[in-house]
């Protein structure tokens, strides 16, 4: 029998071998993800359960190992289709995100310059007081990291209860242009394809994104294919070299807004050379251009000939002038799209969305796929990726946006409001028809004195960090002169897990449960809805965000607020047990007597059918590692959908239709191919501010780093933000690697260290700063210019100047 020391030795050898295999895989470029660690081989004394990773929109599934009430291990889940057992470096350490030393554990109320601890009961009264005083001036700022039930509860509370549409998510800052792009093209949101396209495409084009660092497990699916000898062409269209560039055969370095010209250039060539897919276009597409008199997502209908005329100026030479990408490379792209034998997938994320013409660019990328017929077959797909784990599932599908209702409905449409009032059993007219404030407007209003039109008095922030992520932070939170003059009546409530740049601004801080400290459901970038059960207790008095919303709602119900009652006088969140008896889930000690997630999810499911985004029963997600909607029941089985709008794949495409855009805005089953002209970015470098600042993320840190900077391994790997600057620009300013510089825009300035010839390499005239570091708030410098349709800001193009300290 082996001794414990022999077992330990074998175990250490296995771990060392795995560690070296992981490093070798990354070093050789054959994978950007880590090898499979068999959960039950490591330690079968742990309790293992499934969950999607807490971090990005890829939605990798992990196995979480729990012992003595604590997460002690994480392994990739081999049964997960998304990641097949692989994880990236953040995913492997996701369990540690729960155990930072400074977890928030008690409600805190501002007291002078500090805070005092209060009870949850007192905290609920504080919030109820603020809402009761002025319900129309209350707002919720939510998140693509909300679980589906959390977002749904917040949505029902404010829109169905308070008749108030001031709810908007942080996804306004990341995904809104993708949404408007899908709506303008197909009449319905979210990708037609799925991650399977990465396993079959011949060509993968990255439009301003860096999946090697931001979606590493997804990118590894493509790299792994190539390392096995498959021929696949990778093209990186970007404003700077990144880790992704190193893996690509073609790097097309463009100026800001060059993407708009490039997309038009490809369309121009397809038409000029007669290589567009005539049958596809004539059968399935209409043509549109913006309506300047009445700007909206429907635009003006134009003929094919008019579309061609509008594209005439976008010759390869003109596109080179506008974008900086050589004409020969534009022709190369045109030739690829002209080849019907190739399968082409386009991927994009923040480079295309955080863009003052983000809606336009999204429609143009969809457009070149439609024009060329590279659509509707495995591997032929225009696919936007999300950064957050449930921007799709919660924000886009539940509709936690100021203009939206669940299931793709709109507050402005009477029939949609009636449907929702029926589903929620509300009195007719309860839902307000006027859209609320979108994110930037919400915060501008909150930061404006009430007597100067600042119509938002209280904001409740859940699961996000606007004090670090909003653009032009100084304008909002550090205005010149007396920062707080006229704002004394404003009140900020923040539900969080750790102290952040936002909790520093808060009047009331509520400690929240996180990830596997609560039940949850996320929806990832490929329409996959994924469920998990609570595995460990949250620390101290931290509680689920969903409970917090329901508890506040019930406090208002106790005070007699009509909005908290349905048509029959019952509490909005009346949750029953199996015997049909109401359970007081607003009392924390009873919250887990029933599965509130399941109750809310089953209620929400019925909303999803209108836009053919059908969800299966909750119990199906318990069994699976997620299912891609629409999920429909056939022969007693719940079947997911890989490709939408394509016959044979999508259950809602009628027989014989081949391709059917059944939510077409022109009501004729056709998609809309848009022409948009190239225009200059909102801010361009000039003599005073000669550099273009672009911002983004790094592999080691997720978003604002509030979780990952507390994971020692990740923090050590990337402890501080930096400014990437081209070596020649640095030399001209006498800047050496590691020197401190001042980077300054018209809005703010930062002192930061320079990194020359590091991981990323911007071209001359461009600099890059990641936004994960809360000690270096780069969004004090960024621009708050918005896309006119999506209201999404552009974080990628701000003019700055630099000098050595």
């Amino acid at each position, binding site marked *: 029998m082996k001794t414990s020391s022999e077992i330990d030795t074998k175990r*250490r050898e296995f*771990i*060392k071998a*795995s*560690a*070296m295999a*992981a*490093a*070798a895989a*990354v*070093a*050789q*470029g054959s994978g950007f993800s*880590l090898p499979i660690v068999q959960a039950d081989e490591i330690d079968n004394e742990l309790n293992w359960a499934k969950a999607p990773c807490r971090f990005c929109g890829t939605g990798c599934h992990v196995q979480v190992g729990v012992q003595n009430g604590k997460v002690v291990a994480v392994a990739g889940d081999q049964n997960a289709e998304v990641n097949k057992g692989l994880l990236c*470096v953040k995913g*492997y*350490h996701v369990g540690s995100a729960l155990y930072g030393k400074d977890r928030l554990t008690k409600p805190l109320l501002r007291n002078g310059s500090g805070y005092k601890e209060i009870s949850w009961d007192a905290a609920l009264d504080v919030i109820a007081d603020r809402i009761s005083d002025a319900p129309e001036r209350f707002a919720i700022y939510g998140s693509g990291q909300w679980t589906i039930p959390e977002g749904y509860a917040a949505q029902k509370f404010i829109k169905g209860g308070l008749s108030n549409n001031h709810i908007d998510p942080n996804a306004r800052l990341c995904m809104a242009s993708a949404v408007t792009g899908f709506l303008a093209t197909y009449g319905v949101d979210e990708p037609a394809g799925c991650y399977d396209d990465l396993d079959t495409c011949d060509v993968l084009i990255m439009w301003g994104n860096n999946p090697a660092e931001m979606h590493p497990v997804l990118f590894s699916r493509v790299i792994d294919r190539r390392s096995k000898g498959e021929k696949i062409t990778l093209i990186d269209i970007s404003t700077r070299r990144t880790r992704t560039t190193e893996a690509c055969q073609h790097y097309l370095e463009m100026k800001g807004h060059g993407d708009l010209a490039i997309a038009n250039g490809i369309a121009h060539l397809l038409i000029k050379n007669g290589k567009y897919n005539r049958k596809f276009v004539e059968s399935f597409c209409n043509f549109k251009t913006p309506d300047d008199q009445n700007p909206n997502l429907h635009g003006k209908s134009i003929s094919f000939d008019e579309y061609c005329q509008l594209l005439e100026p976008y010759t390869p030479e003109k596109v080179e002038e506008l974008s900086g990408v050589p004409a020969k490379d534009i022709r190369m792209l045109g030739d690829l799209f002209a080849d019907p034998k190739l399968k082409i997938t386009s991927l994009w994320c923040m480079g295309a969305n955080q863009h003052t013409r983000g809606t336009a660019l999204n429609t143009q990328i969809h457009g070149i796929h439609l024009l060329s017929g590279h659509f509707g077959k495995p591997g032929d797909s225009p696919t936007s990726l999300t950064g957050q784990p449930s921007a799709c599932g919660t924000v886009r599908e539940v509709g936690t946006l100021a203009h939206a209702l669940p299931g793709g409905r709109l507050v402005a449409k009477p029939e949609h409001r009636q449907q929702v009032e029926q589903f929620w059993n509300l009195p007719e007219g309860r839902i307000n028809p006027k859209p609320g404030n979108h994110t930037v407007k919400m915060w501008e209003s909150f930061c404006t004195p009430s007597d100067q039109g600042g119509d938002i008095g209280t904001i409740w922030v859940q699961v996000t960090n606007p004090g670090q992520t909003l653009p032009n932070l100084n304008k909002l939170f550090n205005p010149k002169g007396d920062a707080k003059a006229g704002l004394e009546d404003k009140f900020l409530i923040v539900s969080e897990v750790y102290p952040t740049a936002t909790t520093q601004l808060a009047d009331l801080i509520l400690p929240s449960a996180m990830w596997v400290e609560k039940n949850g459901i996320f929806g990832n970038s490929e329409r996959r809805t994924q469920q998990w059960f609570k595995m460990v207790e949250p620390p101290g008095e931290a509680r689920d965000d969903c409970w917090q919303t329901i508890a506040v709602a019930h406090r208002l119900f106790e005070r007699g607020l009509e909005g908290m009652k349905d048509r029959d006088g019952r509490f909005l969140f009346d949750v029953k047990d199996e015997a049909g008896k109401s359970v007081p889930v607003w009392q924390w000690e009873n919250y887990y007597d029933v599965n509130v997630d399941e109750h809310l999810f089953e209620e929400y499911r019925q909303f999803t059918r209108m836009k053919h985004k059908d969800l299966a029963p909750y119990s199906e997600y318990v069994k699976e590692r997620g299912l891609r909607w629409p999920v429909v029941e056939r022969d007693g089985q719940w079947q997911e959908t890989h490709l939408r709008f394509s016959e044979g794949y999508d259950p809602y495409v009628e027989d014989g239709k081949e391709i059917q855009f059944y939510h077409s805005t022109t009501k004729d089953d056709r998609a809309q191919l848009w022409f948009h002209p190239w225009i200059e970015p909102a801010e361009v470098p000039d003599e005073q501010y000669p550099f273009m600042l672009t911002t983004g993320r790094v*592999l*080691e840190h997720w978003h604002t780093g509030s979780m990952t900077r507390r994971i020692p*391994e*990740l923090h*050590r*790997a990337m402890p501080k933000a930096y400014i990437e600057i081209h070596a020649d620009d640095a030399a001209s300013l006498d800047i050496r690697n590691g020197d401190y510089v001042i980077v300054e825009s018209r809005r703010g300035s930062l002192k930061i260290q320079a990194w020359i*010839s*590091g*991981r990323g390499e911007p071209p001359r005239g461009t600099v890059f700063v990641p936004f994960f570091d809360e000690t270096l708030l780069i969004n004090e410098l960024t621009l708050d210019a918005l896309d006119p349709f999506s209201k999404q800001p552009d974080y990628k193009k701000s003019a700055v100047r630099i000098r050595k300290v």
Partner: protein
Amino acid sequence: MIASLVATLTHEANGSKSVIEELASHPEIETGEFDGTSRRIPLTIDSASPNGLETITRWLQDRPGIAFVDVIFVHFEATTPKKTSSES
């Protein structure tokens, strides 16, 4: 603790045997396969010290010829010493 890293050589140091030899000479570092076609070297660290990763990473970053160091995998082990028979 056991960890793995990838060290990326500078352009100038690519192909330099002395850099690899110096890394391999560290008692807590094992170098993986490196054929010189990529600038990246896989490494594992096996350190008795819980701060070993940080110490060795800083040492690596300071080495001439190393452009940057990425942490790939970390496995922490319990540092509480077991009781000896005289203590139990």
